[in-house]
């Protein structure tokens, strides 16, 4: 079972990378781009086959290591 953990900076935490990407897109002539946020994605190959258990495990990995909840929020998707 594959779990995908997406980690984004919390609203209110400055995201210079997202801002820089937004500016670069504008320089490249892409119009109509509003806010840009940059985050991380971690794909985990899990031995667990039960979706609920897999999601729990991934969430606990995220809380413990993959995200810093002082600045980041995360989401787990299974696939």
């Amino acid at each position, binding site marked *: 079972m594959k779990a995908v953990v997406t980690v984004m900076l919390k609203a209110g*935490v400055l995201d210079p990378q997202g801002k820089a990407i937004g500016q670069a897109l504008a320089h490249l002539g892409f119009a109509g781009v509003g806010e840009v946020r940059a985050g991380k994605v971690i794909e985990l190959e899990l031995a667990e086959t039960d979706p609920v258990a897999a999601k729990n495990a991934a969430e606990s990995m995220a809380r413990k*290591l993959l995200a*810093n909840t*002082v*600045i980041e929020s995360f989401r787990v998707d299974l696939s």
Partner: protein
Amino acid sequence: MKAGIVVFPGINRERDIAIALERASGRKPRMIWHRETDLQSLDLIVIPGGFSYGDYLRCGAMAAQSPVMESIRAHAARGGHVLGVCNGFQILAEAQLLPGALLRNASLRFLSMDCHLRVERTDTDFTAHYQRGQVIRAPLAHGDGNYFADDATLDRLEGEGLVAFRYVEPDGAATAKANRNGSARNIAGILSPNRRIMGLMPHPEDLVDPLMGGTDGAPLFEGISAALGSDRPAA
């Protein structure tokens, strides 16, 4: 003073710290491999700079979870002194021994140059050998030194006087230009409430010898070793 330097895989400024400590105290610090857990005999634990675990994922994140951190936590709980420099500061923040987090530099580039720091308080064992408001020079070398904490935390740090160093101009003014990495309120270093844990991004340990361009970092190491007891045999 018995000092130990924690070496995580990827740490690279352990020798710089050792040189600074030995110069100040006359005694070689002990190198602590990250799997060791017995830190009972130490007065000061230093977590040096570098790229622990490659700084992959987030700077300091993986080191903060390693077994030695439990012993460091216990040392801190006993009222022991802990100094985290650069990656060491990031690790202390990730381990929540100090509040806040260190984000990517606002410029998104690695910063390697001297900065100027204003010493915000001197009634701590780390800063006692400086003058209050003194401006010192120290090298920067980091990609993620942008100090962040929510407003309540920042207000508390300011209110309790737990900001140790701020980025300033040579004349002492805390301007945006002096704050190259974009840190909240120009914060370069902070203290725990008991002022025995200090984390800072710049590298005072690389400026303790006139040959390397200055000695502005030396009082930090002299101060802490004086506070924790001279090692000259009588003590």
